[in-house]
């Protein structure tokens, strides 16, 4: 009762750095705000903290710091350690009362964080070959690097640690693995280190693992049973969000990889919910997107990551269980593009088969949204650039066994491909004359078996670049798959009219003619295909088929034996061997 009756500022006067403030700052701030840490200034001594006392009181009161965007009661995530109201009140009282030091003897020890790698010495450390120079420009920049990974055999990875290299400007990093040369080619095409643009579709989260970085987050290593597989020849793809410091800055991040010495036993799956049909009218302050997916099997929810750009305001993720109960699994009421954490559950949430996962994002494209990058507001479409909008909620799910995982993975892949197609259609609404977008979306339509749509886009591509032999070839190929053989031969002939030595076009034309029973003409084109490219098992196989169709089984066997010596996909190899047996049987 006695202390309640004291005047409030008498209590406040007692707040000192060494006794009250240092324990808060050392526990909640210095993991980033230290020499060599990712924050822009250090808070490890009385003088450093005193100099920013009012700022600390302000940013903790608004809960901008420590950075944590999710509403407090959603779940218990790794690294979730908000300040208490009492701690925030102490920081405010201390600043108001002149930030007194107090008894130096009462100062707790500064936490000793390792100067280098927090997860220990990595098995492999990589960085871009050259630093990128960020100019003293007024607006944020984005830069994508394809970093070669010098591994010569299949390797299993338990995690990575990202070092920004220049904490003044590196705000966060999106990290992916590209098993193809696609990102590398884009990087190489730009004369400066890295490139500014889009990540290719082939740059993916590896085996269902999130690998991004935001300041203050060091993802713990996963157990060896959950490691992800790194194939030789893969590149680490790092997209940096850079906030200029006002000076010219060198940027050279460093990434440490931690290996496991044995293959994993379980592989998670990433589900992406969201919309790629986003089209927000200017001034619309409450534009909503929704998506949902019902689990076909039992799974554990391991982690969750929201992604959106500047106009998103509220982010909601929900799990509706088969018994009718539900819980919020993600809720952010003041979305900030710059704090894209991966939220990992301390205890995985069991999701029984039949659980419906859903998302709902709300956007504000009015002038009242201070983060709106376009003023006056303009119509905004889905797209990967920061001035476009996105809306994804990623769930990391772990099925009970491989069979369940495969079932779920197939469904999810199809669902996400359909949404990717919607994204391309959105981009084509903005730029219908982009032939590469037509080509890419046509391939996606083919992958989900929607041939008429694929035909439509390859036709559009041909119309945009009528002189391109490849465009006619693509159209011919999809027409053939759609069963329109006469149209297909016309397209292949158009391709060959533009490039006489187009081996693949000779091959495909030959195959179509063969299917049409025009064996003589087919033989001519397939011979030409093999002459132009002797190392193409497809062409050799096609030629063998043509010989067989014309009754020349000896020639067919001789040709197919040439094919067998070449590396080829498993499915083709199986067919080739089966057909060879067939030729042997039918040989007179």
């Amino acid at each position, binding site marked *: 009762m006695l202390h309640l009756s004291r005047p409030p500022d008498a209590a406040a006067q007692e707040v000192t750095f060494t006794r009250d403030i240092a324990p808060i700052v050392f526990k909640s701030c210095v993991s980033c705000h230290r020499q060599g840490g990712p924050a822009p200034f250090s808070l490890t001594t009385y003088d450093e903290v005193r100099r*920013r*006392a009012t700022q600390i009181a302000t940013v903790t009161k608004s809960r901008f710091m420590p950075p944590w965007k999710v509403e407090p009661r959603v779940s218990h995530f790794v690294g979730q350690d908000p300040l208490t109201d009492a701690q925030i009140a102490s920081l405010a009282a201390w600043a108001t009362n002149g*930030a007194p030091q107090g008894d130096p003897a009462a100062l707790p020890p500064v936490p000793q964080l390792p100067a280098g790698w927090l997860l220990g010495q990595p098995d492999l450390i990589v960085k871009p070959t050259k630093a990128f120079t960020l100019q003293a420009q*007024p607006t944020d920049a984005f830069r994508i690097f394809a970093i070669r990974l010098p591994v010569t055999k299949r390797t299993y990875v338990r995690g990575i640690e990202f070092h920004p290299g220049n904490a003044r400007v590196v705000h966060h990093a999106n990290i992916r693995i590209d098993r193809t040369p696609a990102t590398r080619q884009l990087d190489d095409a730009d004369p400066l280190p890295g490139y500014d643009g889009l990540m290719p579709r082939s740059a993916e989260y590896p085996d269902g693992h999130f690998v991004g970085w935001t300041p203050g987050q060091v993802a713990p290593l996963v157990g060896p049973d959950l490691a992800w597989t790194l194939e030789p020849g893969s590149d680490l793809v790092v997209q940096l969000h850079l906030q*200029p410091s*006002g*000076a010219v800055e060198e940027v050279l991040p460093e990434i440490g990889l931690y290996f496991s010495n044995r293959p994993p036993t379980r592989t998670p799956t990433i589900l992406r919910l969201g919309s790629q049909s986003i089209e927000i009218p200017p001034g619309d302050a409450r534009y909503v997107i929704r998506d949902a997916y019902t689990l076909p099997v039992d799974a554990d929810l391991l982690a969750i990551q929201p992604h959106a750009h*500047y106009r998103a305001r509220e982010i909601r993720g929900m799990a509706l269980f088969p018994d009718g109960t539900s819980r919020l699994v993600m809720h952010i009421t003041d979305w900030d593009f710059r704090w894209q954490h991966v939220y990992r559950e301390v205890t995985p949430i069991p999701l029984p088969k039949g659980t419906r996962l859903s998302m709902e994002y709300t956007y504000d494209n009015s002038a009242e949204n*201070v983060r709106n990058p376009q*003023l006056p507001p303009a119509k905004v479409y889905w797209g990967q650039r920061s001035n476009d909008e996105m809306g994804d909620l990623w769930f990391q799910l772990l099925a009970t066994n491989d069979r369940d995982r495969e079932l779920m993975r197939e469904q999810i892949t199809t669902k996400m491909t359909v949404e990717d197609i919607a994204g391309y259609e959105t981009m084509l609404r903005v730029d219908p004359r982009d032939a590469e977008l037509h080509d890419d979306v046509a391939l996606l339509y083919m992958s989900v078996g929607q041939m008429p749509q694929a035909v439509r886009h390859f036709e559009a591509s041909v119309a945009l670049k009528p002189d391109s032999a490849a465009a006619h070839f693509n159209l011919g190929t999809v027409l053939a798959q759609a069963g329109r053989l006469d149209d297909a031969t016309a397209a292949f002939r158009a391709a060959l009219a533009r490039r006489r030595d187009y081996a693949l076009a000779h091959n495909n034309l030959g195959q179509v003619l063969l299917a049409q029973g025009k064996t003589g003409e087919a033989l001519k084109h397939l011979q030409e295909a093999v002459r132009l490219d002797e190392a193409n098992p497809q062409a050799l196989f096609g030629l063998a088929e043509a010989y067989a169709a014309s009754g020349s089984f000896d020639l067919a066997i001789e040709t197919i034996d040439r094919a067998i010596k070449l590396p080829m996909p498993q499915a083709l190899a199986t067919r080739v061997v089966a057909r060879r047996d067939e030729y042997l049987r039918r040989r007179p």
Partner: protein
Amino acid sequence: MLPHLGLAVLLAAAHLLAAVPARVLDLNGRPVNPLASGRDRVATVLVFTTTDCPISNRYAPEIQSLAAKFQTQGIGFTLVYPVSTDTPGVIREHVKKFGYALPVVRDTAQELVKHTGVRVTPEVAVIGAGGQVLYRGRIDDRHIDFGKDRPQPTERTLERALEAVRQGQPVAVRETQAVGCFLPDLIR
């Protein structure tokens, strides 16, 4: 009510300021008067900064380009470092790193701070040829609060004030709230 009071204080302060800024020093430790009016000088912009304030530093290109724009129009910019730990050596490095090409003064006795009433860095004060404070506050409205800022400003407040000053018009908004590093914490 508050703005009126503030303005009165500022106007009173402005006279003192014009009289003797005695302890404002250049980087060689010599007393200087950053407001000394040349014949063609219409106004002086004091840009208060500190070397280790990220928000302040990020404005360096904007400050430099505004200075370039107005220097031919009788308006000079001066960088003011009010914090004593920003020694001449530290300041020389800072100026070089951030590409400033402006006159620099140290105001470690906070004469200019007190007379203009600035509270944070970066914050600017536009001083007329007669010593009166014509504008005091933010450079633009990019920063709304810590961690809350616009991708680009919607109002270039200082530039608008300087356009008015250049044309001999009264400045419409004479005080705004700047967001940045708190000077009272830095100078005590």
